[in-house]
């Protein structure tokens, strides 16, 4: 359900691989959306973004993305652009995150 404030996560691209990563509550970047730290207020969001952005030797271009929390507790991006980033190109289901879901790869960016 929509709340009075937007729930948000912090996402970026991995510096080395270029793929999509999410900032976690533990203070590191993860390839798993379910690890993403969820901000429930603007102050929260800005603080998480600042912590994530500080890790410039790991990631590129951190920003906030709006999410809803699914029944399983996993944040789901609201905008189709962010949703696309969780998957990969729609014409190539064999590539990108959607392909890795079948064969997971090493998941944590230091």
């Amino acid at each position, binding site marked *: 359900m929509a709340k009075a404030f937007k729930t948000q996560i912090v996402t970026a691209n991995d*510096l080395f*691989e270029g793929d999509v990563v999410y900032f976690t509550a533990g203070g590191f970047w993860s390839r798993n959306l379910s690890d993403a730290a969820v901000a429930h207020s603007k102050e929260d969001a800005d603080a998480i973004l600042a912590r994530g952005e500080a890790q*410039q030797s790991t990631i590129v271009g951190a920003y906030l993305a709006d999410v809803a929390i699914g029944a399983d507790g996993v944040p789901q991006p609201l905008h189709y*652009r962010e949703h696309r980033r969780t998957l990969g190109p*729609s014409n*190539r289901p064999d590539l990108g995150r959607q392909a890795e879901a079948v064969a997971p790869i090493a998941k944590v960016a230091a």
Partner: protein
Amino acid sequence: MYRYDEFDHDFVRARVATFRDQVARRVTGALTEEEFRPLRLQNGLYLQLHAYMLRIAVPYGTLSSRQMRQFALIADTWDKGYGHFTTRQNIQFNWPKLKDVPDILDALADVEMHAIQTSGNCIRNVTSDQFAGAASDEIEDPRPTCELVRQWSTNHPEFAFLPRKFKIAVTGSPNDRAAVKAHDIGLRMVRDDAGAPGYEVIVGGGLGRTPMIGKVVREFLPKDQLLRYLEAILRVYNLHGRRDNKYKARIKILVHETGLEELRAMIEAEFEAMDAPTFAPSAEEIARIEAYFAPPAFETVEGADAALEAAKAADPRFAAWVDTNVVDHREPGYAIATISLKAIGEAPGDATSEQMRVMADLAERYSFDELRVTHEQNIVLPHLRKDQLHEVYQALDAAGLGTANIGLISDMIACPGLDYCALATARSIPVAQDIARHFADPVVARDIGEMKIKISGCINACGHHHVGHIGILGLDKGGIENYQITLGGDATETAAIGERMGPGFPAEEVVPAIERIVETYKAERLNREETFLQTYRRIGAEPFKEALYPSEARHAA
């Protein structure tokens, strides 16, 4: 084709070494992303939605088989087994890792290629007619001109920080296959009254947010004054082009705001004040460049036409392919074939490494080792003997490259859109796939005839939607992909910007909308010979608007 001299080799290798060092310093944190970003962009390295993307320059779209094979090697070694040919006649790899990019650039240098001038506010890779040196309607091969411009513009110290990117296109034929009126500068080869070749110079064309058709700034420029005149245009632009607003920084805005007459006077004044000999390449240098583009050793082929006719009679699929994908060559006994990278249901412009090798082998064996990339995202084998066309076709067909649809409705341009591109507002590829599947029946497609659909995933218009007979622009409308349709665009010598029909359509309504446009055309055309564009120009937008937005609905709204 052009070969690097020692200076070129050293220059490209030095650039790779510098970039290798820059990557290393980014990884250690010695360079911040802010510092590194312009450096990687100068080497063609972008960061997209899911990965880095490397854009490699294919100067004026000309490739040797060795270079095409190197793309295949890069795709297999450092990427995911395919590449994407773009509307800038370049190739992009969608999945390189940062640490591998210097190695990729070294592999490119091995075959005299690089990724310089594929990004940033510089003079970009020069584009040209894909049929250069082969077309039957050609005044002169445009590629020596392109090469001259490339050498002049590469690392030109005065023009490294222009107000905005700058694109130049050259055509050697009156029939414009290089969309020269949609470029910052377009050069069209013409002859003066005495028959001497020169250029008509067109300035201020461009697509993007504010599409404009270029205007003729000089009707005839003698060949030997080209660089001086280009330098004059660039100086005027560099000085007066707007730097306060990136959306108003292209030369088309300067032309628009200053007015053609005044701008022409400024350019001519600059031109007159310049020392002519300084900007005239030496006769030896011109001869050196031209020698690289000397026509190959064409043979006199006895009975080539008869052999072709016999093969067509025996193989109807081949006959259909010849009909759409093969055009006349200036040399008797030869033909030009366009290999469609628009197989039904595939992403326009994508080729697998295996397909690249097949195309390279065929070029080596049958086409004097030459391939061309077209701005319509296909590949050309420019010099094929007519009696060998059938063999070539069979090899292409076996590799999934035998689609007979050049110029037909499924031969669409589509930019990568939101499936790859970080700037996109909507997807392009699935729209192209849906349209191609809907009109997949060759009988239907042939009945529709010449039709150019062009799709962009955002206002930047890499998919040239403004100059599509049908243009489709993907936008974000309140968090839903939405597609605006324009009609009547044209990228050729009769260039025109398409007219917007009305409100956009959600993704699932695009194919039905295209279907209604096609049905309207079929009902209105005078005969089968009248193309969609001709019909549109004759009857105007109204019948198509009526088909797209029936008036009862419009009034009810």
